[in-house]
């Protein structure tokens, strides 16, 4: 009797699992009768959480606003957000889940350059468009091999050029660089090294640190013993804050230039008064109050800032802005999507629509995509920002 009960229980369990399993499968065309399904891979925990959380918040806010206004083409927008925990392996798994199980039409994110680079193969062979929120130029170059991949943040190369232009104008010739060993950091390091000569700069000290490193004093001591006139740091906010604080501890009085990876309040909160005097290029979002009303981006910037800050604490950041730009462009692509296409055809059509976006006014800049440029950001999108008294100011 015991044996038969056990077998019956196993059978019932198996049937139940199968039932649940088949219920969670999509119906094959990327949309239920009511909604368009888009995927999002964001790092809401792990080392890049300060970037991923505003991105996820922005996505949540936008979905509500869009659906409250009637959706897209009469259908609701559904964004399935997965947390990749700033881990490339997890990101790759979740990408497959979005593509195969959830059958989404497009994916926005990931948050970090490392995770974005990790899934380029995946999205290319699955033939699904990806709009990344990460910085490395390698994400969209060489463009012949990045047919399905787009991105919204300024590339590391553009930001390096902005930093170097400023240093050159200040008459500085010798610099020290401190970079993280992450993909973002090594990408920045590559361009910092290759572009230096073009701006009359010599790198006299070249130090690296790991993500999650909590003390940079040794690396900075090496730098202190050189004749560097400025320090350029390429990392996101936790590590950059440690660099700023340790420079203060060692009484290194040189200007500190950072990447656009510190464009959130968490950097200022972590670094305290060591953040003052730090200069970094970023989109105009942190310095909206300085943007004149005649600037074509003014309306988008002020509206996004007001909306975000009325719903979420922590202040606005460029990272939420990157997600806003990415999802907005996917929405534009969906608006032109024909009815009745198969999943594969829909994904290809969305990709084509993304590539033909022209003059989209976003928070990071004005975007005009093309077959040779999958970032499409027009000049004038970067602002040189200086932190004064714990606030962002536009250094013009």
């Amino acid at each position, binding site marked *: 009797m015991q044996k038969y009960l056990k077998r019956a229980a196993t059978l019932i369990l198996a049937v139940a699992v199968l039932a649940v399993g088949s219920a969670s499968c999509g119906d094959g065309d990327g949309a239920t009768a009511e909604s368009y399904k888009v995927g999002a891979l964001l790092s*809401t*925990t*792990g080392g890049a*959480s*300060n970037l991923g*959380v505003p991105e996820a918040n922005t996505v949540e806010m936008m979905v509500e606003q869009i659906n409250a206004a009637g959706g897209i083409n009469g259908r609701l927008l559904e964004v399935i957000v997965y947390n990749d925990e700033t881990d490339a392996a997890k990101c790759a798994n979740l990408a497959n889940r979005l593509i195969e199980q959830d059958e989404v039409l497009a994916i926005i994110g990931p948050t970090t350059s490392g995770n974005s680079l990790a899934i380029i193969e995946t999205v290319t062979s699955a033939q699904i468009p990806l709009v990344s929120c990460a910085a490395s130029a390698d994400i969209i170059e060489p463009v012949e091999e990045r047919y399905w991949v787009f991105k919204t943040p300024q590339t590391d190369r553009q930001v390096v050029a902005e930093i170097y232009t400023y240093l050159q104008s200040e008459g500085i010739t010798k610099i020290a660089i401190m970079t993280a*060993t992450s993909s973002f950091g090594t990408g920045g390091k590559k361009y910092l090294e290759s572009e230096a000569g073009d701006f009359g700069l010599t790198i006299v000290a070249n*130090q*690296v*640190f*790991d993500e*999650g*490193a*909590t*003390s940079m*004093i*040794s*690396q900075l*001591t*090496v730098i*202190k*013993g050189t004749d560097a006139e400025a320090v350029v740091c390429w990392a996101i906010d*936790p590590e950059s804050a*440690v660099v700023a604080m340790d420079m203060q*501890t*060692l*009484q290194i009085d040189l200007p500190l230039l950072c990447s656009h990876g510190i464009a959130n309040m*968490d950097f200022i909160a*972590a670094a305290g008064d060591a953040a003052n005097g730090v200069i970094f290029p970023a989109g105009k979002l942190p310095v909206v109050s300085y943007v004149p009303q005649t600037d074509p981006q003014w309306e988008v910037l002020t509206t996004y800032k007001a909306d975000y800050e009325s719903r979420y604490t922590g202040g606005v950041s460029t990272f939420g802005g990157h997600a806003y730009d990415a999802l907005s462009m996917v929405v534009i692509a969906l608006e032109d999507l024909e009815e009745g296409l198969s999943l594969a055809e829909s994904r290809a059509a969305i990709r084509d629509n993304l590539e033909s976006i022209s003059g989209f006014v976003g928070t990071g800049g004005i975007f005009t995509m093309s077959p040779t440029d999958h970032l499409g950001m027009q000049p004038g999108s970067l602002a040189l920002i200086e932190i004064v008294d714990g606030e962002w100011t536009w250094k013009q």
Partner: protein
Amino acid sequence: MSIDQFVQYLIVGLTDGSIYALVGLGFTIIYAVTRIINFAQGEFVMIGGMLSYTLATSAGLSIPLSFLVSVLSAAAVGAMMYLFAIRTARRASVISLIIITIGFSIFVRGVAAEIWGVSNVRPPFFSGKAPVSLPFVDAVITPQAIWIIGTAVVVTLLLHLFLKYTMVGKALKACAVNPKAAGLVGINARTMALIAFVLAAVIGGTSGVVMAPHILASYDMGVMLGLKGFVAASIGGFKNPIATVAGGLLLGVVENVAVGINWGPFTSSYKHVIALMVLLLILLIKSGRLASEERAA
């Protein structure tokens, strides 16, 4: 490398090394008494750090009081870990128990992420953050670093006295040397195991409170610290607290002086790799010795 720079690397190395040593002591104590490698040791440190942040800022407790409460809480978690996770599985093999500690560490991290979120936080410095310049050399040390090194010295001293001169300490050592013989002379192995876990949690929690202002606290700070502490403990052979502390200090100094050498493989690129290389070396050397010890036992 100038003398000033070398002294600076030494100072940073001793600070980092003290941190590794304190974490390593927890591994050593638990392994010596129970033969379990407690992969949740880093989490005791994290609890100390995160709790001290909340108590000192939101609850407004004074630093000594938040220290006390944080350490006691870590001790409570250590006791609960032993009683509910380890003792209940007492018939399992040592390997299974080690895996249980891994599971427990994942659980604690998850709870911490729920309570505190995922951002880094910094509890207030004990004595401010104005660096102290050293005489004769152009090097500085922060007040918090002095606290960290001082804590490591005091903890090591107290532990040594405890193990050598108190009855409970001697009973712990007896368990470490030969659990069966200790049982024969009336030492209750389960009580000793509980004491070992609580002691490791107290040391872990203490180190967490004192290091959090220096290195930033977060829900997953225990992972990397656990790894470094594990390396320190393996240098000490998982048996001798003094050797563990020496191992931790050595690791910290080697890591930072290597950065300063700035030549060949000794650069900042390999700073974290050094801990793992040392671990590999230790395992290669010791595996031979451990194997022959097992055969003799």
